[in-house]
């Protein structure tokens, strides 16, 4: 049997100081099974007492080869895997994948489908921020926020279940539109969220924003300047917390975001507290977008009628020969995409979520690469955690809001 090698410091000597080699500082392993690493993240910490001298992230424990797997499936089937990348932002992953496929094959999406996509993607952003708030507050020992946030998240998951039958892995958006129209109960359920959430967000804020214990744990911790944040490729709240107003919904609007009136909140401090404030404000802006989209939700079809790419409705199959042929072709071979590559990015709750999709003229993606925001946001952890305490490191990991499914793919 092949010898299992013990991991040692030799290969990583360039990442720690000389004092670690001489044994003056301690190397401590944190994770991969650790509740405050938000998944299976392993960190090698070089510690002097309780001060972090250097931090070496070790990722890949959740690597499932999704990019490789997608190359062997047709464009429609590959979409199911996209839910599993960033499991806090499943519909957002569907959205960017559908946008990429639509751009690659040049397919139009009806306006109603675009508006519903916006509503659901924003609901998902809200639910992702709720999980972030719950867990990162828990990391700095604010237990009660956790229970409140999960209570509200449940309302959003119920809406996803109402639309798609699934709470998390919905695959509700499809290339060319949606799987099907939303049910009649949808509007009332979303209005209920719009009604209760502003008060609930105030409630979270009353627990944390002016809480001296929370402020002590977060202000001035994990600081990064706007310039460094750009150079390190940070996106999302980590970038906006450092004073750079960059949001893909404004930078390159997609799915009709240009019609909605909303602000991109920024803070300038660049610390854990600033990222907290940005996300709290973002939740309020998200509610604004949902309300506008719901108020002017247009009527009409939710799927493109280009049946070369989008399956015809079930009712047509019995009466139309064309529809039957399209249905058969789409579900046996899939559709062909032209040779060429596209790069499409959207604003996920964590930042720029991009897809590089390349077609080779056949029915399967030749290459599908995911530019995931958590990857870059995690990469900067050694910079953020320079000379902080171990307890602060936990707060920093919480504040960059990583999802390991998003990092490892």
């Amino acid at each position: 049997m092949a010898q299992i090698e013990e991991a040692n410091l030799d290969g990583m000597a360039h990442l720690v100081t000389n004092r670690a080699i001489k044994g003056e500082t301690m190397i401590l392993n944190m994770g991969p099974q650790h509740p405050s690493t938000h998944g299976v993240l392993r960190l090698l910490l070089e510690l002097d007492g309780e001060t972090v001298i250097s931090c070496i992230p070790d990722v890949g424990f959740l690597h499932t080869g999704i990019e490789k797997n997608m190359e062997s499936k047709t464009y429609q089937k590959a979409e199911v895997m996209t839910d599993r990348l960033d499991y806090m932002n499943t519909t957002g992953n569907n959205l960017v994948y559908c946008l990429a496929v639509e751009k690659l094959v040049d397919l139009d999406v009806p306006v109603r489908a675009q508006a519903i996509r916006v509503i659901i993607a924003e609901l998902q952003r809200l639910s992702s921020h709720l999980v972030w708030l719950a867990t990162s507050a828990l990391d700095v020992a604010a237990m009660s926020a956790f229970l409140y946030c999960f209570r509200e998240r449940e309302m959003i998951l119920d809406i996803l279940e109402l639309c798609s039958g699934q709470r998390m892995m919905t695959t509700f958006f499809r290339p060319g539109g949606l799987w099907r129209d939303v049910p009649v109960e949808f509007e009332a359920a979303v209005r209920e969220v719009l009604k209760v959430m502003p008060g609930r967000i105030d409630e979270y804020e009353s627990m944390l924003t002016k809480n001296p214990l929370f402020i002590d744990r977060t202000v001035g911790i994990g600081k990064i300047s706007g310039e460094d944040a750009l150079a390190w490729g940070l996106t999302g709240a980590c970038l906006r917390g450092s004073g750079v107003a960059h949001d893909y919904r404004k930078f390159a609007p997609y799915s009709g975001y240009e019609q909605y009136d909303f602000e991109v909140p920024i803070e300038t401090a660049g610390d854990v507290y600033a990222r907290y404030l940005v996300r709290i404000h973002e939740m309020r802006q998200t509610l604004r977008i949902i309300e506008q989209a719901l108020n002017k939700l247009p009527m009409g079809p939710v799927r493109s009628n280009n049946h070369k790419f989008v399956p015809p409705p079930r009712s047509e199959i019995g009466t139309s020969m064309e529809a039957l042929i399209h249905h058969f072709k789409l579900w046996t071979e899939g559709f062909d995409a032209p040779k060429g590559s596209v790069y499409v990015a959207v604003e996920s709750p964590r930042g720029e979520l991009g897809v590089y999709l390349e077609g080779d003229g056949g029915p399967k993606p030749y290459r599908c690469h995911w530019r995931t925001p958590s990857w870059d946001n995690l990469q900067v952890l050694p910079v953020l955690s320079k000379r902080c305490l171990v307890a602060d490191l936990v707060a920093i990991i919480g504040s960059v809001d990583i999802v390991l499914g998003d990092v490892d793919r």
Partner: protein
Amino acid sequence: MNEQTFISALKSQFNGEQLEFRGESTLVIQRDQLLDVTRKIREMGFERLSDITAVDYFPQENPRFHLAYQFTSLAHHATLGLRVPVPGVNPSVATIEGIYPNANWRERELYDMFGIQINGHSDLRRILMPHDWEGHPLRKDYPLGYEEPQFTFNFDEIDVRKPYAKD
């Protein structure tokens, strides 16, 4: 967006080939120009490196790989794509870590997934796969699944006939 002015400026200096697809402009340049072109792109005001990835065109050998870079400029409100063909024999490319620090992990991913040597990289280790893994999973000649599971008692027996992607 106004990519065209940037692409024209780069083309006049480096003679690259310009690709147009679905409104995205991409510049194809030679491998040895990469550092100069990237430096120029940074000077032109592209503050962010969005993405680096590779595509394997196996069994085509020269070039076997295309590296695809995406740059974003907030100041100019523009995005720019760059493609670098790399041959299949001893694939290697210079690191752009010195210009865009976040290239570090993305280049490690290229090394891990495609076996592309990154010259001058400060920390070239595997990133997603275990450090003793054999082969590079995203190459097209790497088998996808359907492998016999190996257990302690039959590890060597299966290892003999198990297909590995040979370098």
